[in-house]
């Protein structure tokens, strides 16, 4: 059973995704900000990280760089989510996928399935 780390400062969105992925059969861990997310990632070693971009403190972009710099985590696929556009900044990052908010649940599920096979 694959473990997915969900990081979003918006609790309603984090909870939604947790319920969806739980019902899809994944093991889910939730963090509500970037720093907490990085700490959970180091502790849990998830198979995939699903993180919001705009968060107070450590944001999604900084998180991506921190994960890439960590030898234990650098191979973990990361999917970023944002209410803003997927601009050139996101395109230049070593991420596995990008999801615009609001999103189709089918799209999220399909993407994750694809990345974990």
């Amino acid at each position: 059973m694959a473990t997915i780390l969900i990081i979003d400062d918006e609790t309603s969105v984090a909870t939604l995704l947790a319920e969806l992925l739980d019902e899809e059969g994944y093991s889910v861990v939730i963090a509500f900000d970037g720093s907490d997310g990085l700490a959970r990632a180091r502790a849990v070693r998830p198979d995939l990280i699903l993180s919001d971009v705009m968060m107070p403190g450590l944001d999604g972009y900084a998180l991506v760089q921190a994960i890439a710099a960590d030898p234990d985590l650098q191979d973990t696929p990361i999917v970023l989510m944002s209410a803003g556009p997927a601009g050139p900044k996101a395109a230049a990052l070593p991420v596995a996928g990008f999801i615009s908010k609001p999103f189709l649940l089918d799209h999220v599920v399909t993407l994750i399935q694809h990345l974990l096979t």
Partner: protein
Amino acid sequence: MNHTDPNVQILLVDDRPENLLALEALLKPLGHTLVRATSGREALKILLNHDFAVILLDVQMPGIDGFETAELIRGRERSQNTPIVFLTAVNTSEHHVFRGYEVGAVDYLLKPIVPAILLSKVSVFVDLYKKNQKVSQQAAQLERTVAELEREIERRQETERALRAAHEDLELRVRERTADLSTANAALRHEIAVRQRAEQDLAEALHREQEARHEAEAAVRVRDHFLAVASHELKTPLTAIYGNVQLLRRRLAQDDRIDERNRRSINVAVEQTARLSRMIEMLLDISRIQTGMLTISRAALDIGTVLRRVAHELETGLERHRIELITRGEPLVVDGDELRLEQVLHNLINNAIKYSPGGGTVSVCAEHRDSQVVVAVRDEGIGIPASALPFIFEHFYRADNADRRNIDGMGIGLYVVQEVVALHGGRVEVRSAEGAGSTFTICLPASTANGGP
């Protein structure tokens, strides 16, 4: 002194012609004009019209005697100063002589006449006469000179008056000219003041215009910031709502016992939330375009593939419309932003359906033309009034025939289409007539890279 002068006349008065002859003979050498009178009466008559240097007057004459004649001569203005020399006999008494002096005689000559004495005395009087004449000539000359001088003075005064008049005229003209000049100056100053005021007004108008523009620009910045923040803040709760209604539908789909009405309700909630989501996305796009924040990524992509995906998505649920996709099967590769171009094609085909409320065929023709990929979307709908055509790519613009038919829309779709196509280096064209449908054509530069996507 004995020079002759016929202009000098001497009057000889004696009643005896022999005496007159003797006198004439004696006086002739002097060369003067000798006038004779044989009576006092005749002498007086002659004296009316002539002047004489001297009168030789015999005392004893019949009728008016010498004394009476002398008195009458003296009584006349013309002759009152003419010297009279009486001719009288030697036996004349003292009394006689005195009487002669009383009536105006200046001298006596005693008969018989001594020629030397006669000539001497006459010469003296002639000289005197001449000198008098000369003096009076000189006086007359003097008078003439004086008169001339006076005339000259008069002339000069006249000239001076004329000069003064001319000067005054000149001064008057100078004053008039000065007045004219000062009037002109005043007019000029007025003109300058008017122009300065006009310039001031212009500067103030410019200043007001700048202020108005700054205010307008500030208002635009506030609006754009509001749009960005509001859209973003709206999307967070929308993400939760949209996600949860989808989650609910997923759960219900696995439950066979669920009522059909609940299924329909949840479908409506999902669809309308999706619609709301698209609208917010459009508002955000407007904000991005107007703040210059709309950027596109570039990757080779096949327009045919995107078109098939969009057509498939929009076809679902259509009843009265048909989407006809016409391609030659060739790859239509452009370098662009796939999501944005999908949005463009979605907007155009969706508009074609939306503005054909009566149904019909929407034909989408895609092909290579020269170095471009051209996509034409043609509908059989209500068309666009000619008066609206210049404005349809403006944001929030809606043609009034769309409003009359209650066709939904915010007037954003074509604005975004135009901007996105322009960012790709392409252009949008439209041909339409009210009631005769519309054809929107986008032209994008074909990819120069080899091979497909």
